[in-house]
């Protein structure tokens, strides 16, 4: 196998040949997690096209079909695989639509965290001095408040300040903002740490000798080299954000009931748990666990695979 033969393979070939792919394909847990995560995400994203029912189409709801158990139970109806809830909505479809909301909130919240975190971390690490001190103290202060507390606080303020209809409309964004704003310090710290290492490397000095501006060095030289750990934390944080959203929705301060997320479904189903209709809450719960667990396992694998010390 000569180097020349492998010099310019196509992108797919390069990927299949990479160390990352190798470590991925040789870890059964990771492959299984990836499949589960793909199924969850795929089901969520494609819900409008592949879900057996549309739980929000009031016209198609049949109250007669309420409280149907899963299909394999004695009273089960094969058209409602995981049963129905109190309004006759298909639980499976509700889960798919709910996961959609959960994931949307999760992705957007992480994106917000990443954006703030990278900006703050790069600036703190590269510029140092007062900028560093101020940004990192803000991050420290932020870390002393639990996420849920901040989210409750923001939600409370928004609720008090805005009329109910308006609040329901923007509730989704409030949740995204609340979760996103509370997670940025972990990104900022990681980016700052890597930036401190990178800024003293000689390639950065070489750019400084040429006279490249600080902003440019931060963006085009330092940033690409600190993204690895960010990707890892982002993956782990996605699971966390989905959970945080579920917690908030479970507490009733999350997304509005007109757009139920997995957390909302669990809360609603919780009311029926002791009257025997367990499927209404258990299945959304299982979906949530599978989604968060698989994403977190993927994040763990990514961290190990990108860590040169463990290679």
């Amino acid at each position, binding site marked *: *196998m*000569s*180097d020349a033969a492998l010099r310019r393979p196509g992108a797919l070939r390069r990927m299949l040949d990479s160390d990352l792919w*190798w470590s991925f394909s*040789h870890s059964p847990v990771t492959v299984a997690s990836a499949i589960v995560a793909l199924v969850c995400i795929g089901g969520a994203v494609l819900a409008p096209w592949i879900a057996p029912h549309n739980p929000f189409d009031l016209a198609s709801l049949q109250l007669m079909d309420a409280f149907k158990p899963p299909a394999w139970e004695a009273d089960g109806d094969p058209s409602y695989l995981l049963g129905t809830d109190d309004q006759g909505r298909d639980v499976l479809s509700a889960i798919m639509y709910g996961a959609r909301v959960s994931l949307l909130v999760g992705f957007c919240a992480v994106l917000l965290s990443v954006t703030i975190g990278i900006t703050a971390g790069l600036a703190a690490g590269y510029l140092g001095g007062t900028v560093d001190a101020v940004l990192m103290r803000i991050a420290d202060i932020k870390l002393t408040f639990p996420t849920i507390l901040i989210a409750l606080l923001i939600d409370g303020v928004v609720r008090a300040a805005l009329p109910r209809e308006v609040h329901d409309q923007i509730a989704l964004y409030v949740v995204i903002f609340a979760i996103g704003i509370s997670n940025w310090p972990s990104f900022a710290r990681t980016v700052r740490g890597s930036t401190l290492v990178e800024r003293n490397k000689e390639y950065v000095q070489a750019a400084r000798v040429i006279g490249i501006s600080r902003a440019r060095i931060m963006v085009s030289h330092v940033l690409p080299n600190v993204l690895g750990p960010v990707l890892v934390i982002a993956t782990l944080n996605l699971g966390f954000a989905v959970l945080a959203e579920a917690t908030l929705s479970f507490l009733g301060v999350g997304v509005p009931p007109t757009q139920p997320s997995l957390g909302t479904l669990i809360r609603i189903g919780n009311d029926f748990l002791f009257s025997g209709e367990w499927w209404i809450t258990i299945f959304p719960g299982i979906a949530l666990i599978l989604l968060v667990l698989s994403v977190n396992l993927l994040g763990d694998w990514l961290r190990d695979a990108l860590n040169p010390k463990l290679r």
Partner: protein
Amino acid sequence: MTVPLLEVRNLRVEFPTRRGTLVALDDVSFSIAPGEVLGVVGESGAGKSMTGAAIIGLLEPPGRIAGGQILLNGRRIDNLPYAELRRIRGREIGAIFQDPLTTLNPLYTVGRQLVETMTTHLPLNPAQARAKAIEWLELVGIPAASQRIDSYPHEFSGGMRQRVVIALALCAEPKLIVADEPTTALDVSIQAQVIALLKSLAREKGTSMMLVTHDMGVIAETADRVAVMYAGRIVEIGAVRRVVQHAAHPYSSGLMGSIPPVGRRLDRLQQIDGAMPRLSAIPRGCPYNPRCPQVFDRCRVERPELMPAEGNLAACWLYDGAPQHA
């Protein structure tokens, strides 16, 4: 000829990787006589440190000895169980590494580390061992040894630390010391002190030494014989003066020639074009053939064994039954 203290026969070290098995050491054979200093030189990646690591049984996984034998005093040590090997490592083989901080435990005083080593391997009680430890520290040139014995490694400077490491390697009175780049991390003026110390101690105690370094100057000053390594193989081995002044193998002579002399200014340094091959792409035949100025057809197909050449042994077809090349 006396029985060698250490004998390495056809040693082969492999690294299984997902792209196939890399052969890091291939058919490496040499011996060290009692009291002899063997220098091992080569460029980074030539396998010189790996040879040392294989002898002291500290190959980094997944590297493993895949063939050949290592004999200490006529006894095989390459296939010993871990615990047994550990005993030998302290008692009969001492190790000195490039970075003294990897050898010294930062949490214990140097005295405790010396005492522990000695009481483990020698019939000494702790009090005797402590007295001996102070003696050793004085011997390696630590000033005020009786006070410094209770200091921690970080309280010593780099040069002093390496002296402590030398004391630690020698205190169990091993028969063989494997020293891997013992002076590379030190400043020039400190290097000279440490080399002088190692040399005089080894001579005094009759200890054999395998001195692994990329610095030909250190070898020239310290070693009796020298082995030149390239791409995981020994390409030349012989008396140090012969190899330095009349290297037989084209690689060794190129290596010697590319060392800038301090005594005069050259218009142009002799250089070896190209770079050492990666382990994944070692050429067929003689591994040096793509860079060799004297290459001919046979070099590209058939691998040369060590053969007599100019008073040394060289793995080069130039010397195959053809004394007219000498």
